């Protein structure tokens, strides 16, 4: 009775907890992607690149300027948001009226350029980044050893996710954002400065990616390629959750992390393909994703 498919329940529990950690990353990245899609009508392929920039800035902060991990957690997302805003002002704002395809291609190009520059400057081998003091070691949960840092990732990202949800769903600024997402032209005719909203949303979205990057730095290879490995999966999460749906992104991100954990025990080879299988099935059954409305 303590086995499922021949695997001890305890091992499975451990996997589920770890899945939750991965899910937290998916959720944080997909929220940003999702709000950007909702507001800008752009599928932000450069999202992974901003995530990578976040991790790199954390490393650079520590290595060059002695900025601690904790300060990075605050400063880096702001810096990434500023970079994002600069990109939005100089490049993205010209293509809002065009088909989705162009936004996808433009941000794909931007991602290539950003990644290329980091490859050129820093090489691809990656940079060392240790788990911050105070978060080393771990908890013995009985069924598994949970590193403190992983626990921190869950807490931090859930806080950020819930915070983002709160801002968007429950505040006045959020009502502006929702209105501008639903009908940007009319909202602007009501006196709301939609172009600034758009800029802020892009900043917020990529800032979240930057935050995820800082969170990832101690556990993943800080390398220029880290973003492009991630982006396709996060993409799938957003599509499964329903484009533009915030709650959908959070829920799907977490859920997918957990669902992915199961094949990692049973048939590990397929674990990274799993997300696409789920995506195909979901799109066939619910074309607009689990939480989305077809537009």
């Amino acid at each position, binding site marked *: 009775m303590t086995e499922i498919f021949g695997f001890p329940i305890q091992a499975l529990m451990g996997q589920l907890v770890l899945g939750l950690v991965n899910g937290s990353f998916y959720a944080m990245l997909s929220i940003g992607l999702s709000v950007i899609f909702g507001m800008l009508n752009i599928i932000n392929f450069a999202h992974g690149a901003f995530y990578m920039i976040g991790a790199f800035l954390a490393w650079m902060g520590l290595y060059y300027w002695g900025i601690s991990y904790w300060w990075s957690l605050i400063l880096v997302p702001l810096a990434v948001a500023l970079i994002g805003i600069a990109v939005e002002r100089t490049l993205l704002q010209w293509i809002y009226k065009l088909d989705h395809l162009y936004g996808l291609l433009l941000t794909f190009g931007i991602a290539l350029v950003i990644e290329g520059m980091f490859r050129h400057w820093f090489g691809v081998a990656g940079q060392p980044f240790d788990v911050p003091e105070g978060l080393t070691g771990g908890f013995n949960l009985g069924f598994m050893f949970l590193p403190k840092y992983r626990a921190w990732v869950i807490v931090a990202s859930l806080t950020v996710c819930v915070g983002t949800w709160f801002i968007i769903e429950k505040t006045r600024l959020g009502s502006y954002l929702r*209105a501008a997402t639903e*009908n940007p032209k009319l909202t602007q005719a009501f*006196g*709301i400065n939609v172009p600034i909203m758009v800029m802020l949303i892009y900043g917020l979205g990529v800032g979240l990616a930057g935050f995820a990057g800082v969170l990832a730095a101690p556990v993943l290879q800080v390398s220029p390629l880290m973003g492009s490995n991630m982006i396709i999966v996060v993409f799938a999460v957003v599509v499964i959750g329903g484009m533009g749906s915030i709650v959908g992104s959070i829920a799907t991100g977490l859920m997918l992390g957990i669902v992915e954990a199961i094949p990692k025990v049973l048939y590990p080879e397929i674990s990274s393909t799993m997300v696409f299988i789920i995506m195909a099935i979901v799109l066939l059954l619910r074309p607009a994703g689990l939480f989305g409305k077809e537009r």
Partner: protein
Amino acid sequence: MSRRIEHTPVEYLRVTDLHAFYGESHVLHGMDFVVNQGECVSLLGRNGAGRTTTMRAILGLTGRRSGSIMLDGKDVIRLPPHRIARLGVGYCPEERGIYSSLSCEENLLLLPKVASGGMSVEEIYAMFPNLKERRHSQGTRLSGGEQQMLAMARILRTGARLLLLDEISEGLAPVIVEKLGEIIRDLKAKGYTILLVEQNFRFAAPLADRMYVVEHGRVATEIERRDLPSKMGLLRDYLGV
């Protein structure tokens, strides 16, 4: 107050030689008209004549535009829509524009105040008790009439002095249409300047001080209210009613 304005009309909105496009198609071909302060002016015309486009062009919501739009002495044709709105223009669009992702109250509170002198939320709820009852409902769950009231109510809160009302009576029950008429008369009395686009001639005629008949994207003729009885025949020809 209204009497004083009647004697010395102060120009509030002047549209001169306004051309507007949607993508490749040229919709307005040189609109010319004036709305004076405190006046209620109606744009009449058949479907596709360019009345709604005129409103949207004033707010900068169409594609390319040319000509001039003087608002309270200032040319606004180069301004982005939100700056125009901030000069005191309230817009009630034909499709009502109630947001489904916002609750009734969020819809009401969405629009930023553009000037002092707007109605308070309490006053608005007093005027539209239905809205108060349903303030936590999702915007698009309201009935058609409620949505129309909400669309009206939210621009009254902002302090806008020029109201652009597009087909507000469309598809509503006669009782509600009557109620809307009262509201507009009330607003006029309060000194609001109103530009009204209406299909429903019976609704517009008693409210409007002057009317412009729009055809093929330009003003075909202007009719003062007092000339209305004598020009009904002409109007029928234009409107095809």
